[in-house]
């Protein structure tokens, strides 16, 4: 996965990636994850601040990746789901553990894991994945 592990990219994404910190427009009270620095409704009249999301969510749809891209082969097969953090706020994420257990509607919480190995210089990249909560 060329160029993905660059220091500046990793550094910029550290807060959202490691700690689920998105943004909120305090004018219209819309929250964003992944973070947006421009409110979709209020635009330049909005007031964007940091917003910490609780580390849990619900699976809306999912898949199991069996043919993985460069840098992810060691994890395959792995599940990826679209997870609802709050009504209207959704993000895609890898769900760790047995992919056969992943189902729509199941609750998940964040977990800090190794994301991939960079193909170019072998750097390990860490970040946020998700694990299933007990049903």
């Amino acid at each position, binding site marked *: *996965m*060329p160029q*993905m592990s660059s220091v500046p*990219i990793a550094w910029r*994404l550290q807060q959202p990636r490691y700690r689920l910190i998105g943004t909120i427009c305090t004018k219209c009270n819309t929250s964003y994850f*992944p973070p947006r620095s421009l409110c979709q409704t209020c635009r330049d009249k909005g007031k964007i601040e940091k917003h910490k999301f609780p580390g849990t969510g619900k699976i*809306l*749809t*999912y*898949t*199991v*990746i*069996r*043919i*993985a*891209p*460069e*840098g*992810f*082969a060691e*994890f395959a097969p*792995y599940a*990826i*789901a*679209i997870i609802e953090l709050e009504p*209207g706020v*959704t*993000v*895609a*994420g*890898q769900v760790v553990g047995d992919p056969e257990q992943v189902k*729509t509607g199941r609750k998940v919480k964040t977990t800090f894991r190794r*994301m*991939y190995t960079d193909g170019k210089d072998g750097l390990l*990249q860490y*970040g946020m*994945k998700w694990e299933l909560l007990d049903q």
Partner: protein
Amino acid sequence: MRRVAIVGAGYTKFGECWDKSLRRLAQEAGMRALADAQVEGKDIEALFVGNMTAGRFIGQEHLSALAADRMGLTPIPSTRIEAACASGALAFRKALMAIQSGQHDIVVAGGVEKMTDVGGDSAVASLMGAADQEWESQIGLTFTGLYALITRAHMQQYGTTSEQLALVSVNNHKNGVHNPNAQYPFEITVEQVLKSPLIADPLRLLDCSPITDGAATVVLASEEAAKRFENPIWVIGSGQASDTIALHDRKSFTELQATIVSSRVAYKQAGIRPEQVDLVEVHDCFSINEIIAIEDLGFCKKGEGGKFVEAGKIARDGERPINTMGGLKSIGHPVGATGIRQLADLVTQLRGKAGKLQVNDAKIGLALNIGGSGATGVTHILANQNAL
């Protein structure tokens, strides 16, 4: 606005073309289209090239200049457009606007992609450049994975079945058998699709379009210039729309706003309703995308695309013939070329020259080209003289 027609079209054999470089493919398709139109190089006033991945696949950007150079057309203006898998149709739309602007009368639009020079896992990673690099590529999503997420959502919400998906592939392969340029010109069965390996559940290998090399080109002419050509095919509607780059940022995962908006614009410009479309080219990069397109283009109600396919309505002699020359599934999907190939196939049909694949009395055709997981949608509506 000035009226514009397509007066020539052609594409290369699609497939794994180890013996042909990107520049060779582009030149070959260009010469086919010029020969088809019977125009000479000196008549061409501008060039538009759609391509997605040459920078990552072969280290070559600036394809605009390369294409003009290889076709011996320098110093005419040449422009590269990139919109992931919608690069081709978008290049065409910009060529159309160049004529409408009054700056040019005869313009060439082409698309080209050389995908087999790199290994499969590199290709999978490179194609994800079409999606959100920060929030989709970096978690290990693939292109098939994105459409798999859409597929499951559609199944959950509307009861769409794997059999219905399989029937999309079966239909398109059935047509592709008679297309001499198709990469996989053979029939497949529902059983074969359902037994093919899972790539990203619930999508299987035979739900996916292949990795392909190929190039396609069309020649456009203004109304005045079109007079000297035989059987011009008119562009009566053109629409383009965007959506969030990341799938998860959308309100719905079972419809593509870029299809809905771009087709509404095109229908309005053409002054027609969906029922008036005689045949359709849709972007079946994955079988689910054909089902969703059928719905979003207005050929049936939302959620009923699966049943529409099951009822055989997309067959060449059905209610709404779709991908009558084989679609992305059978012809192949050189991403930047696909949008132009779709238009070239519509031209063949609307000229009545599709041979065994001919749709009876075809007068109006629609082509939908999609980029990424739906972040770009481009719709064109073409018509022959009988429709006007």
